[in-house]
């Protein structure tokens, strides 16, 4: 029981060292260009994150085997950790200073004493080097390499059948929607009805656009699914009615905005903003 408590405490300490609480005035700075060669399309595989996983596996391997008293494998993982740590330190020259080879070697030496207390103590210094880099760079790396670039997506506008950039297309959807809501607010129901056809056609085109990445139906229909169909039918019914009911109309506009627009924007927009800002900066 004592050993288990010790291991848990050590793991907690290590975790805190590797993933420290982020500062409030965090700066999301674009990762160095040299990292790009370890991610698609420059690399066939995401080699950088694979390298992180390798180090993490060997680091964890030391403690798992110390607990199991499998000292032969403790030694193997300790050596491999130093080897991979050195290799990683050479991959991105701009980040060389994050690495402390001596700390890695000291950790390996401590692990090889097969004393879990000594290994835990030595892991703190090494863990801090990981934590510092993660704190400074992790969000940027995930944003740049693990999130899609919306501004690179091209959409064929179904109304005029011309290809436009994604951002421009979003603006078209937004103005189509205003065509419906503004006319409805003015009591111009026929105009609102015509505008609804355009708005719906543009909105539904997003199903095709999203399907380029979201290939499973559950995800694909999350933003433009049943709720969107219900909302559009509700809007059409109101606009075709003798006397449209504003309550029903605005309820359906709200449903569309909340389940479609807002949900998607909450998930994707922040990262899209950051990436776009970086690329704008590059163009200057």
């Amino acid at each position, binding site marked *: 029981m004592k050993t288990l408590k010790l291991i848990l405490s050590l793991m907690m300490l290590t975790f805190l060292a590797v993933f420290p609480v982020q500062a409030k005035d965090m700066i999301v700075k674009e990762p160095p260009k040299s990292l790009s060669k370890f991610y698609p*399309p420059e690399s066939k595989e995401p080699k950088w994150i694979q390298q992180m996983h390798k180090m993490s596996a060997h680091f964890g391997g030391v403690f798992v085997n110390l607990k199991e008293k499998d000292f032969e494998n403790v030694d193997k993982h300790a050596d491999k950790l130093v080897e991979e740590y050195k290799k990683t330190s050479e991959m991105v020259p701009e980040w060389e200073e994050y690495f402390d080879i001596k700390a890695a070697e000291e950790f390996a030496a401590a692990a090889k004493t097969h004393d879990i207390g000594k290994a835990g103590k030595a892991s703190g210094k090494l863990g801090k080097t990981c934590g510092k880099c993660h704190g400074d760079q992790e969000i940027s790396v995930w944003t740049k390499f693990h999130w899609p670039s919306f501004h*690179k997506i091209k959409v064929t506008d179904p109304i005029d059948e011309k290809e436009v950039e994604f951002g421009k297309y979003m603006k078209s959807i937004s103005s189509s929607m205003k065509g419906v809501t503004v006319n409805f607010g003015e009591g111009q129901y026929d105009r609102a009805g015509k505008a609804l*056809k355009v708005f719906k056609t543009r909105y539904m*085109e997003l*199903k*095709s656009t999203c399907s380029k*990445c979201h*290939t499973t139906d559950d995800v694909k229909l999350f933003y433009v699914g049943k709720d969107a169909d219900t909302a559009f039918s509700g809007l059409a019914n109101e606009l075709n009615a003798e006397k449209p009911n504003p309550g029903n109309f605005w309820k359906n506009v709200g449903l569309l905005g909340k389940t479609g627009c807002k949900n998607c924007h909450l998930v994707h927009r922040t990262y899209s903003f950051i990436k776009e800002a970086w690329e704008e900066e590059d163009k200057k």
Partner: protein
Amino acid sequence: MKIPPRLTNLLIGFGCLAISSWVMLYFIINEKFEWIPKEVLELARDPELLERPEAKRCSECHEAIYEAWKDSRHSLSWTSKTYIEASENRTKEKCLACHIPQSVRGEKPTPRLDRREEGIYCVSCHFIDNKMNGPYDLMAPPHPTVRNPDYGRSKFCGSCHEKTFKQWQATKVEDTCQDCHMPRTKGRLTQKFGLNLLHKKRMVGDHRFLHGEITEKDIIVESELTEKMFTLSLLNKTIPHGVPTADNGDPRLYLYIKFFNEAGDEVDNAKEIIAPQQETELPYGKKMVYNYRLFDKVSRAEVELKYQPAWTKEKTDLWKVSVLR
């Protein structure tokens, strides 16, 4: 010069022997494949062909099939511009299994590492468990072929065309994918001189993997034009899967409707995008109805259907009808 009678007899004897040997061989190869011992089958094998050869190597014997495949979309699955763009320069992992399959066998394949530029090629579909597979048992150098009934079954195509396969299953129609997209004609499997004399003509599937043509007989249109409404319906009567259909591609039917007043001026228009990715495809045997409210006085409507395959932005005209009030 006079040929001695003994030499004539010898030549006739050899001739008879050669002909009877050829007849016997032809009979065994084509009719009694099961008589051939496994060891003999192995003797006919060129071990190099176990190294997953390139399609060009297969064309040395199967020239006609190779030429048909080269005309197919399967041969372009890795090099197609549309695929490269849609997969962000081939970096989307989920696309790889079906664009460069290692071995197709009725379930989702795994991607391969070699000969990627050949796309879905001979070896992807015919080399299974270290043996050449096909619809017939065949014994011919440089490789014996093992009969695999899956080549006539839709499930084989469903390895990758999963969604289309499920749509077809739901229709309960007996015609398989191969019946329509690989129509069989009698011909030779090989064009190489010598080998072509050893094999009888068989039903050979079209390896262009034909993309069926959509006509007015396939998609039935009905319409009604009244003072306030125009109602149109489309019925996919003959094609036993959604039209258009695709797992991840984006083929479309564009339905254009133009409304004209008595003077012949266009007063309004509408458009429908019929596409699997928008879940608006035309299901088999189910009428899809489209309603349009008319805001102006309309005396004629013009309806036009166009098709845009997944791999191009070009549209082809299917049909056009005019509806009078």
